């Protein structure tokens, strides 16, 4: 590919700073023209997506060795680069960046029409780009304190966006609740970082894991830090015991933001897997020991996953608000990812089991992350389109939308089939990987996972019947505006590609991520 060397060299940081630059140009340009912010935001997010593509090419060509970018380093400055801020990008990080890039592009195009009537659009687009900055930064950085900073950036920007519809008191209620949870989790994260720094005197995650390894494995303090980190990141991901704020925030956010919210929440999963594998699952080839016997940790993650799956879907069945229903399904789907990768964490130290089913479980879990961001993003966008036309989210007040909102109906159907795991959709491929591998780990959990999938299908059939089928309404709503349809089409196109070529996607996108998590342990075994 003919990409100038400048972009090749600086791709990791450009991914983060392009939307940051756009975010601060937006309010300045917004003073000149009220329609300019939308173009600025789309331009800079597209630029960032292009940089992600350049970065992905570079990462995959040298997988599983990560791409390292050191901030502020003169060549030969004589200072050990691990004491500087480093961006460390491997297969998993770049996969998460791809997710964020696709979803944020779709969401910004979708927002053109969606928030056309609202004032304060420059602030909306600023915060949207800052959310992307937070998510990109979280998945690309190799420095655990930077991870905290980006974690807070994305939380604060998302809260501002949840409260964007200022005419509703409910949006402030949801935003307050989500902000409270994320601030408290931020304090715990800071404590965990303090513990690491106090013990090892570094903040670079790779160096922390090596220092822990040479100190003879995880100490008691490290285990406390691990408890804090698991709590914080599963809260960010919206897993069950800490899920109270998620449905409110998802359902009160404007349509495009709910989609981006899903992708931003999944950075919590990324951070959880990163700490589990890179820091605590570090394998020392000299002593043949791991930093921590991850069997218990794996089971904790698996149990979190099973609880999320089951409680999420049962809560979803009783909802009457279409976005709240989808939000509970988002919690339920998060359970699949935790389950898949949790199995991988549990059997990490057992090479026989790892090659028998652990790698497949991790493939399934990580494949499900990108699938879920795509189809749940799509479903939230369709729900936003319905809200845009009807000004209600109550399922009892809508019927027969399929008569006039044709594209939205088709898009909803594609998303619903994908989330229910119907063949041949992409959701089926990832769920099949999870079922097969989890069955070998523990059959009962696999049965629960299948049951949850059936309940998901039932729930979405209910929505489809009550909202899109039935008699034609008296004032049939028009289909969604063009820019919203374009936003949804982007996601649908990617979903269809993923559905048609699952093998290729797993090989090209998912395997580098799995290899990166297992590197250097079992590097050749995948």
């Amino acid at each position, binding site marked *: 590919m003919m990409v100038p060397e400048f972009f090749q060299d600086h791709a990791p940081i450009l991914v983060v700073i392009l939307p940051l630059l756009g975010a601060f140009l937006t309010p300045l340009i917004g003073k000149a023209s009220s329609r300019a912010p939308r173009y600025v935001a789309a331009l800079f997010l597209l630029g960032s997506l292009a940089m992600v593509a350049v970065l992905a090419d570079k990462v995959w060509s040298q997988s599983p060795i990560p791409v390292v970018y050191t901030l502020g380093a003169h060549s030969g400055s004589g200072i050990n680069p691990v004491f500087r801020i480093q961006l460390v990008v491997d297969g998993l990080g770049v996969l998460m960046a791809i997710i964020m890039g696709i979803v944020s592009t779709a969401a910004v195009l979708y927002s053109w029409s969606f928030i056309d009537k609202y004032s304060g659009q420059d602030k909306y687009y600023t915060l949207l780009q800052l959310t992307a900055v937070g998510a990109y930064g979280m998945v690309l950085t190799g420095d655990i304190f930077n991870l905290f900073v980006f974690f807070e950036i994305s939380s*604060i920007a998302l809260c501002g966006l949840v409260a964007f519809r200022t005419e509703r008191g*409910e949006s402030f209620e949801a935003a307050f609740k989500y*902000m409270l949870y994320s601030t408290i989790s*931020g304090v715990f994260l*800071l404590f965990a970082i303090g513990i690491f*720094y106090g013990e090892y005197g570094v903040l670079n995650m790779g160096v922390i894991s090596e220092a822990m390894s040479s100190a003879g494995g995880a100490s008691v303090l490290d285990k406390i830090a691990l408890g804090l980190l698991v709590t914080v990141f599963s809260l960010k991901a919206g897993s069950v015991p800490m899920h109270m704020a998620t449905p409110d925030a998802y359902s009160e956010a404007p349509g495009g933001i709910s989609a981006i919210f899903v992708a931003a929440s999944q950075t919590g999963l990324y951070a959880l897997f990163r700490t589990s594998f890179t820091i605590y699952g570090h394998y020392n080839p000299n002593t043949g020991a791991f930093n921590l016997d991850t069997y218990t940790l794996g089971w904790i993650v698996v149990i979190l996953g099973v609880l999320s799956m089951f409680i999420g879907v049962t809560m979803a069945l009783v909802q009457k608000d279409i976005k709240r229903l989808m939000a509970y399904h988002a919690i339920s789907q998060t359970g699949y990812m935790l389950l898949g990768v949790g199995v991988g964490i549990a059997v990490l130290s057992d090479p026989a089991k790892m090659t028998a089913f652990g790698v497949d479980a991790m493939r399934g879990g990580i494949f499900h992350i990108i699938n879920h961001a795509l189809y749940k993003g799509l479903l939230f966008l369709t729900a936003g389109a319905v809200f845009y036309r009807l000004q209600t989210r109550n399922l009892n007040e809508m019927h027969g939308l399929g008569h006039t909102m044709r594209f939205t109906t088709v898009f909803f159907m594609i998303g619903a089939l994908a989330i229910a795991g119907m063949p041949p959709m992409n959701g089926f491929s990832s769920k099949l990987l999870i079922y097969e591998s989890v069955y070998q780990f523990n059959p009962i959990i696999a049965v629960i996972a299948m049951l949850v999938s059936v309940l998901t299908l039932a729930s979405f059939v209910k929505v489809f019947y009550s909202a899109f089928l039935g008699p034609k309404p008296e004032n049939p709503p028009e289909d969604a505006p063009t820019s919203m349809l374009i936003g949804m089409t982007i996601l649908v196109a990617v979903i269809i590609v993923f559905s048609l070529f699952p093998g290729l996607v797993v090989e090209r996108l998912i395997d580098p991520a799995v290899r990166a998590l297992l590197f250097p342990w079992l590097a050749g075994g995948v």
Partner: protein
Amino acid sequence: MLWQLPFVVSVALVAIGLYICIVKTNMVKIVMGVALMESGANLFLVALGYRENGTAPIFYQNPNPGAEMVMPTTQALTLTSIVIGVATTALLLAFTVMLYKRYGTVDTRRARRLRE
């Protein structure tokens, strides 16, 4: 042993803040609880960087050679987390004000239209 006191205090601050967040129903008090928790975390970080008889980490002709300096990194971290704390506190207070305008109350037991 006395230099371990800040750790005890920081954990106590976080515990008190968490207690306030869980038990109190006034949203302004909850914001105060969050601010307390943040202070606890900041104190923890600063205390980590403390070295006994350490001097300020500025490069100058050291008055007593061999004396240690306190860690500057944790102070930088604390500064960052203070800035983030300012942002979150301001945002939470803004939400409280707007919620009061819409609902006429700052009591979390009465401000829960989402649950209905």
